[in-house]
């Protein structure tokens, strides 16, 4: 009998994300992370969002060197000037350069976005992981508490906090972060619970693998994906929330600016100096859009099976 080795040639490699594609990738032995990264890189909107955000962060970081004006330099004699010439985006009613205020405002808005999200991530992941891993009665109690917390009008609490303790930027980070962790906790808890009950983890436990090793080897790698995706989606929510508070006059204090305070100033002057409203609104909108593009792209890249939401 003759044995002959045959090779099977797969016709044309590569292409967009699809189930078949996943199958082909698995066959090619690519890791899930590389795979997600490749799918993200193919999503034009997500890449555009990422690039825009990097640019915006860079501009915000370099704000003092980029602008010859400071956010606080008032020039009452100059007063409000329309965009063009010396002041690219015009000046506000106190004669302050709007571009400079936008660049410095971006610092506050983005910093709040990232830091408050980090706060929410820390609280949410620990709460969810503890609840899910311990399980049993602890889990029940912790989830009941979460249910009760869901029913609280949190934005109102933040407002009360800001009123009571004054408009303090650090308080803003913590308050906003402390409000946004509920869903993160639920996601992490669900994920931990399902991994904990998988056969291979149970098998590992029965042969005496330590809890820390299970957490390190099985649980953490499996929750990183959802945590990254959900965090990315939290950032725009927090940026929005900060702008909302600043708009109500409860965010950062004059002469400091964030996109929210600039929009609030703009609303007051929109009939006479519309540029004061239009530029900050536009900055906020584009940043939110970029964040949403990126978040959506990440979600699809990490979990191509899931639908839009």
């Amino acid at each position, binding site marked *: 009998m003759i044995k002959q080795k045959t090779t099977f040639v797969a016709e044309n490699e590569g292409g967009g994300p699809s189930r078949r594609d996943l199958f082909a990738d698995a066959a090619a032995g690519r890791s899930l992370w590389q795979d997600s990264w490749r799918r993200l890189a193919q999503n034009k909107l997500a890449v555009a969002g990422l690039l825009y955000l990097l640019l915006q962060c860079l501009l915000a970081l370099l704000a003092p060197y980029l602008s010859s004006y400071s956010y606080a330099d008032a020039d009452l004699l100059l007063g409000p000037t329309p965009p063009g010439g010396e002041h690219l985006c015009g000046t506000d009613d106190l004669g302050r350069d709007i571009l400079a205020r936008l660049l410095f405002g971006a610092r506050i808005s983005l910093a709040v976005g990232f830091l408050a999200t980090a706060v929410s991530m820390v609280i949410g992941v620990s709460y969810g992981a503890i609840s899910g891993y311990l399980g049993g009665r602890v889990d029940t109690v912790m989830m009941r508490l979460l249910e*009760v917390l869901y*029913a609280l009008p949190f934005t109102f*609490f933040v407002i009360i906090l800001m*009123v009571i303790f004054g408009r303090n930027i650090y308080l803003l980070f913590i308050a906003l972060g402390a409000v946004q962790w509920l869903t993160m906790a639920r996601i992490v808890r669900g994920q931990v619970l399902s991994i904990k009950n998988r056969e291979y983890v149970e098998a590992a436990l029965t042969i005496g693998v330590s809890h820390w090793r299970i957490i390190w080897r099985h649980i953490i790698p499996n929750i990183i994906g959802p945590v990254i995706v959900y965090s990315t989606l939290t950032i725009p929510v927090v940026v929005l929330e900060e702008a909302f508070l600043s708009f109500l*006059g409860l965010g950062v204090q004059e002469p400091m600016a964030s996109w929210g305070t600039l929009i609030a100033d703009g609303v007051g002057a*929109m009939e006479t100096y519309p540029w004061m409203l239009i530029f900050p609104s536009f900055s*906020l*909108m584009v940043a939110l859009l970029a964040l*949403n593009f990126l978040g959506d792209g990440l979600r699809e890249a990490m979990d191509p099976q899931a639908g*839009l939401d």
Partner: protein
Amino acid sequence: MLGYIIRRLLQVIPVLWLVATSTFFLMHAAPGGPFDSERQISAEIQANINARYHLDEPLGKQYLRYLQMLASGDLGPSFRYADRSVNEIIATTFPVSAMVGLIGLFFALSIGLSTGIFAASKLNSWRDYSAMLLALLGISLPSFVVGPLMILLFSIKLGWFSVSGYNRLQDLLLPGLTMGIMYAAFFARLTRGGISEIIRQDFIRTAKAKGLSNTVIMLRHTLKGGLLPATSFLGPAATAMLTGSLVVETIFNLPGLGRFFVQSALNRDYTLVMGCVLFLAVLIVIMNLLVDLAYAFLDPRVTYD
């Protein structure tokens, strides 16, 4: 079922207690009271006022007094609006907020669901992609950006609506639309996602094999399950509409609950602030319950007991 509803409604009690306690102590921990930013008043008058509102009593006693009052359904007198009770203020301002919220919810649902269904029925076509791009744009449009721009366009430039204030019912149209736009985008995404999930299911293939038309398949077989994600978002959306009223009422200068809340917080009007928060907490619990019941109606596999 009835037992479940009663149990859920009883959940209001711990929520209310938590809210009442935390806000009470927070407000009292704050430096400054409701009457000290005013013009100089004599120590005697100050003492009188404090006595009248029991502000001279120890904190613990004030707390118990407040809880007792709450138990009888009384939210107390407003510190700022001297002769009005908190109950009265909520009763007059809430209808305005509720009306704006309902209009907003109407826009959100009608625009959102139709866009979502449209996109899902043309899944992965250019129409689907442009609808979803539009929705992504929509969720990046906060009300305090949309609102002023709408006033600028429709009221100032075109003169279709009053610039501010609430005299006629149609004055609530623009605020409602402002509030609804972002949630319309969320609903569109959720609807599209839910339906595209259902379309992949085996039972849709069965429906096709039965020779049903695409319209019947969409309306009868797809929609019920496809709307579940949007349904569960109704609760958070309704809550957000109430929160959103803070900004929209400020922008459009409407005499609603949201604007009163912001004002009272800035004025340290303890009882009014707490009254508003408590009232909203109850509303949220009830709305979440309604949403869960709607969910059970749509999905026969979900039962509560």
